[in-house]
């Protein structure tokens, strides 16, 4: 139990620093940055207290907002996907989720892909909508969501396979 808490605290600060010091400065093709801190929300243990989970997601988003001077955009998007996560867990992993806590490293790649995809796209859409904050720029919002989501998804999947403990 303590091991899981410890792991998540490390993950919280590790991903936070990775995000603000490296990933937010990549600016691939001018403006595309991966949002690697989402891994904290995506991989948070499923059996844990939901209140803690929602609050820590909010805190992570808020600290990133302070670093990047973006108001509360990351915090809003993060707390939203933290709240709706059970819905997508059920949708992507089906029956496994109903009976027991999921170990993400033991899941199928395709299931994990779908789960990551949905949550990342929702997060990015809400975030870019709040960043741009203008309905007339819908095309810009959709474009940025699409490109950044693809990049984030790629990086997140790479990270999970890189650090998975599964024996080959």
């Amino acid at each position: 139990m303590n091991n899981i808490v410890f792991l998540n605290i490390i993950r919280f600060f590790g991903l936070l620093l990775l995000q603000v010091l490296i990933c937010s400065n990549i600016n691939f093709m001018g403006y595309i940055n991966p949002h690697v801190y989402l891994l904290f929300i995506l991989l948070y243990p499923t059996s844990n207290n939901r209140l803690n989970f929602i609050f820590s997601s909010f805190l992570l988003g808020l600290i990133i907002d302070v670093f990047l001077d973006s108001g509360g955009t990351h915090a809003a998007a993060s707390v939203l996907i933290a709240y709706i996560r059970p819905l997508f867990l059920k949708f992507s992993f089906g029956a496994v989720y109903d009976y027991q806590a999921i170990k993400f490293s033991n899941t199928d790649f395709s299931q994990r892909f779908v789960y990551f995809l949905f949550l990342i796209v929702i997060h990015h859409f809400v975030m870019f909508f709040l960043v741009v904050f203008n309905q007339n720029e819908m095309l810009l919002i959709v474009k940025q969501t699409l490109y950044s989501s693809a990049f984030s998804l790629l990086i997140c999947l790479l990270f999970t396979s890189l650090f998975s403990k599964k024996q080959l």
Partner: protein
Amino acid sequence: MQQLFNFFIKNKTFVLFLLLFSIAISLTIQSHEFHRSKLLNSSNYVIASIYGASNSVSQYFNLEKENQLLLEENSRLKSERFNQKKNSPVDSILEQTYSLNSALVYKNSYTKPNNYLTLNKGLRDSVKEDYGVITSKGIVGVIDKISTKYSRVLSILNTSSKINVKLKKTNHFGTLTWDAKAADIVQLKDIQDLVKLELGDSVITSGFSSTFPANIPVGTVLSFRLNDTKDLYIIDIKLFNDMTSLNHVYIIKNTDINELETLNESDE
């Protein structure tokens, strides 16, 4: 009352979500308004020192380019000095109203609609709000938040930035804004359609505000078009400054700023 409590306990996850989400939204809305968010910005001590630690490593990668910039500026200043008229007044130091203070850029962004920079100078170095920030090539922005050791700059690449500039050739002045499209192109507005414009015309600061002295280079006219009401120009300006790689900047202190402010206040 009992029922109300029961409702909250039953839906505590949703209530917490709603609370946090509305906090985040209100922070977002606040950040879109000028001069609001007090605590939560990157001039915060902890945040800025983390940026500082990261910068102390990454600044070595730019040394060659920074040297080049310094050499260019030095040669320009030297040539100005050599071509200067001889008899400059001995007490010119007493007449100076602007003093420059160098600073390091700890954090810079240029991809969002609202961009800010974090500098390593703050209240301790007698930096104040509304001081201008420039590089040797052109303007960067205006200081909008300060803590003891750090400050945050509202970049010219910010949709709420408004800076008074003029055309060098004709002295017509207008407002410099940004449409959040490209990091090297800003827009000059409020120029009458009677003004004769040419591509490549230089744009400089007007000196009407206490923030920037007159004649600091901004950029050149890239293209222009009329606005919707067909009476004012919208001019695209190509910046002299490369806003995507800033390392050393200068903060301009106006020593007369207090006097100017009291003048303006008495007017209102």
